[in-house]
C-alpha cells in the first residue's frame, strides 16, 4: 500500500542517515550483513553501522577496486556485503570488479552509490555520476534501484538485503523530500502510479519524482492531466506498467538525474519500441559532463526541473496522432 503525503516537504533526516539506519535495521535481523567503506564513511553516512556492528564493518581506505572484489570474496563465504562509496567510484571506477568478481561470479553483493547525478554538487564534474545507471544497466543480472524518499528507502533496503544477487542502489547524500506516508510499502520491480492522469505519463526516478509531481501540478493548471509514475526500479524495469501507461495516456515523458543515453529514458524507450510505441520524450542530462555548483543551479543548468518536464510533456502531447 502506497500513500502520497498531503504536503511534500524536505525530510528532516538526510538520505544517507535514512539509508544507514535502514541497513542497521536489516543487520539486526541478518547478522551476515557486512559493510565496506573506502574512506568515505563520513560522507556516505555509514559510521553508525560501524558503531552498531564493529565486527562487521570495514573501512578499507582509498582502494575501491580491492574493496569491490573483496566484496565478491566475502559473499562467496556466505556473507552479504554492502559496498559504499560515491556513485562515480561505486560504478565507473570498479566496473570490472563488479562485473567479474560480483556479477559474473554469481555473488550476492550490494553496491551503494551516494552523491548520484547533480547531487554531487560542490564536488563538481569529476564526481558527478551521469553514466552510472547506463553502465550498470548493460551489466547482466544486476538490479538497479533509486529510492525517491525516506519511507521508500526504509522499504527497499530490507529487500535488497534479503534478495540474492548484485544490486546497485543510487541515492543523493543529503536533502530529499518526503513524498510518501509512513507505512507505505514498495516492491522492487513494481513501479508505482502515484498520481493519476490521462493525457501523458511522467515516469521518474529518485529526486526527479518530486519534479515530476510539480510538473503535473503545473500541467493541470493548463488543463493537461498528467499521470506520474515512480519508477524506482530501473532494472528490471516494470514493462507492464509502461505499456499500460502508454495505452492509457498515449504519451510518455521520462525524468532522470543522469544521462538520457543509457539511463531510465533509454530503458523505457526500449519497452515502448518493442510493444506499442507512443510519442515519448526524455528529460535528463543531454550527453554532458557534470560541473561544479549548488544542486539547485545544476538542476536548472541541466534542465531537470519541473518547468522543463512540463514543456517536454506539451511537446510530446503535440506529437500525438
Amino acid at each position, binding site marked *: 500500500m502506497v500513500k502520497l503525503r498531503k504536503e511534500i516537504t524536505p525530510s528532516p533526516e538526510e538520505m544517507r542517515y535514512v539509508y544507514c539506519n535502514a541497513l542497521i535495521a536489516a543487520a539486526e535481523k541478518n547478522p551476515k550483513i557486512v559493510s565496506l567503506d573506502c574512506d568515505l564513511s563520513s560522507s556516505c553516512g555509514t559510521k553508525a553501522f560501524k558503531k552498531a556492528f564493529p565486527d562487521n564493518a570495514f573501512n578499507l581506505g582509498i582502494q575501491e577496486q580491492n574493496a569491490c*572484489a573483496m566484496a565478491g570474496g566475502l559473499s562467496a563465504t556466505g556473507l552479504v556485503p554492502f559496498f559504499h562509496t560515491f556513485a562515480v567510484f561505486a560504478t565507473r571506477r570498479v566496473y570490472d570488479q563488479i562485473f*567479474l568478481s560480483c556479477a559474473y561470479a554469481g555473488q550476492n553483493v550490494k553496491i551503494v552509490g551516494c552523491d548520484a547525478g547533480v547531487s554531487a554538487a560542490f564536488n563538481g564534474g569529476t564526481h558527478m555520476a551521469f553514466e552510472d545507471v547506463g553502465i550498470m544497466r548493460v551489466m547482466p543480472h544486476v538490479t538497479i534501484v533509486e529510492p525517491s524518499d525516506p519511507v521508500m528507502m526504509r522499504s527497499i533496503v530490507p529487500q535488497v538485503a534479503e534478495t540474492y544477487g548484485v544490486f546497485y542502489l543510487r541515492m543523493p547524500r543529503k536533502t530529499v523530500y518526503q513524498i510518501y506516508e509512513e507505512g507505505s510499502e514498495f516492491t522492487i520491480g513494481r513501479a508505482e502510479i502515484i498520481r493519476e492522469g490521462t493525457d501523458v505519463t511522467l515516469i521518474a526516478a529518485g529526486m526527479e519524482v518530486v519534479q515530476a509531481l510539480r510538473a503535473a501540478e503545473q500541467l493541470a493548471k493548463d488543463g493537461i492531466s498528467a499521470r506520474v509514475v515512480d519508477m524506482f526500479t530501473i532494472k528490471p524495469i516494470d514493462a507492464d506498467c509502461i505499456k499500460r501507461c502508454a495505452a492509457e495516456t498515449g504519451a510518455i515523458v521520462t525524468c532522470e538525474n543522469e544521462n538520457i543515453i543509457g539511463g531510465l529514458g533509454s530503458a523505457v524507450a526500449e519497452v515502448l519500441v518493442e510493444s506499442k510505441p507512443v510519442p515519448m520524450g526524455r528529460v535528463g542530462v543531454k550527453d554532458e559532463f557534470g560541473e561544479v555548483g549548488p544542486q539547485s543551479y545544476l538542476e536548472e543548468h541541466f534542465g531537470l526541473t519541473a518547468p522543463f518536464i512540463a514543456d517536454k510533456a506539451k511537446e510530446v502531447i503535440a506529437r500525438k496522432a
Partner: protein
Amino acid sequence: MIQDRQVEQMQRLSADIRKETVRAIGAAGFGHIGGSVSIADVLAVLYGGLMKIDPKNPKWEDRDWLVMSKGHCGPGLYAALALAGYFPMEWLKTVNKPGTNLPSHADAQKTPGVDMTTGSLGQGMSSAVGIALGNRIQKRESYTYCIIGDGELNEGEVWEGCEAAAHQNLDHLIVFVDWNKKQLDGKLEDICKPLSIEQKFTAFGFDARTVCGYDVAEIYKAAEAAKTVSGKPHVIILDTIKGLGIKFAEEQAFNHYMTFDSEAAEAACAEIDKRLADGTYPRGDFRW
C-alpha cells in the same frame, strides 16, 4: 613434519597434473600451457595434503579455499581437481569446447572445486582477501590460499589487496607467487621490472619467503613454516620456470599460450615418465 612417502606422492601427483594438463590443452589444440605447468608442483602440494578439503562435498563450509588469481591457468587447476576426485577425468577432454564445465579461465559457477571465479588479473587477490576475512568473521579456522602470477604483480589491485590483508592481520591467508619470470609478451625484466618481490611483500606487511617452486617438499615446508607466524598474511614466492616439465614448452621462449596437438602432448608425457624413471623429474637436463 612431512614424510618421504608424502613427498614422493606429491611429486607423482605433480607429474600427473603436468601430464593431464598438457593432454587437456592438447585435446583443445591450444591454451595457456606455460603458466599452467609452472604451478603443477604447488597444486600437487595443495591438493596432495596441504589443503583441508572434501572433493565429494566441494562447498563444505569448513574447508580450505584456493583462489586461482591467475585465472587463465584453469587447465592446470582442472587437472589437479580431476585427479583429486572433484569430477570425472573425462571432463578434461572438454576444456574450452562448447558447453564445457571447464572454460579457459576459472569459473566457480561451472566447475566443482573452483572456489572463486577469476580471469581479470589482480581481482583474485582481492577476492582471496575477502574470503579469508569472511571465514574469520564467521569464526572458521579455514586457510585461504591464493596463486598469483608474477606478471600479475603489475596490477595495482594486488597491492591494494596486500594492504587490506596486512591491516586486517589475515594470518590464515597464504599467497603463492608463481615467479616464472615471464609474462605474455616476454620477460618481466623487459616489460615491468619486478624488483625484489620478497622485499615488496615484506614492505607491505607480509611474512615472506622464497623457495624452489618445483620442489614439493620445500613448498610444503614453507607453508608449514608460514602457519607458525601469527598476525600477518603470508607469501611464498615460488622460484619456477615457465613451461617446466613440458619439453616442447621449455624449449620455446614465448610459451605463455601455445598451439599443439595430442601427439605432442603424449610425447611430453613420455618425457615426464622418462624423467621420473631416471630420477631427474621435473627438470631433466633442461637449463635456461
